């Protein structure tokens, strides 16, 4: 059960959940959550392959990836808060509506 393909399947399921979230959800926070899920699934795949090879570079790459996504969340939430302060809502469709 414990083979690279299994990890990849889990990652694929996570990615598809993330895609579902991105397509369906209109709540900014949920969008961020979806993005995080996808990023993590990808990290999982990388680490799985890095263990398979075995090669440390995969792990280094994942380290960078996590760092970047943390930074991204910080900025994303910063943007969200400023949007919330303007529109008093975190629904992205609302932002569009208000602009018109």
């Amino acid at each position: 059960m414990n083979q690279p393909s299994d990890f990849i399947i889990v990652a694929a399921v996570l990615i598809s959940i993330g895609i579902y979230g991105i397509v369906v959800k209109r709540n900014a926070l949920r969008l961020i959550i979806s993005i995080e899920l996808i990023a993590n699934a990808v990290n999982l795949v990388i680490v799985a392959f890095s263990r398979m090879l075995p090669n440390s570079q995969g792990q280094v790459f994942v380290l960078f990836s996590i760092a970047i996504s943390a930074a991204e969340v910080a900025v994303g939430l910063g943007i969200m808060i400023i949007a919330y302060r303007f529109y008093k809502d975190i629904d992205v469709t609302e932002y569009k509506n208000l602009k018109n």
Partner: protein
Amino acid sequence: MAGETASQFLPILYLFGFGIVAGISSVMLSRLLSQRRRYNPIKFLPMECGQIPTGEGRSHFMMQYYSYILMFVVFDVMLIFLYAWAVTFTSVPKEATLPMMGFLGIMFAAMGYALFLAGKKGIW
């Protein structure tokens, strides 16, 4: 074989489990032993110094220190990289410290500016 290091982590889970067992059992025991009376709804009002509570308990209230939490996210990342460096410190040539110093320098500059911004207490 994959999963070997995982067994190192098992005792942590054991202890976590002990904590949960201890917690749940004591809470259950306390439910068994304690007398409970639900004669009045006032009892279950949130406590507010003997007043009837006004307003929501969970407001969207903020302290002025949001910026520190934002900063924490970023510098937490920085720290772990520092640890990766510290572990390797003795086994790499001394020049390898230079990029880390660069990293630190840039982060320090950022931190300084961020602290300056945060110190202005205008952050929501």
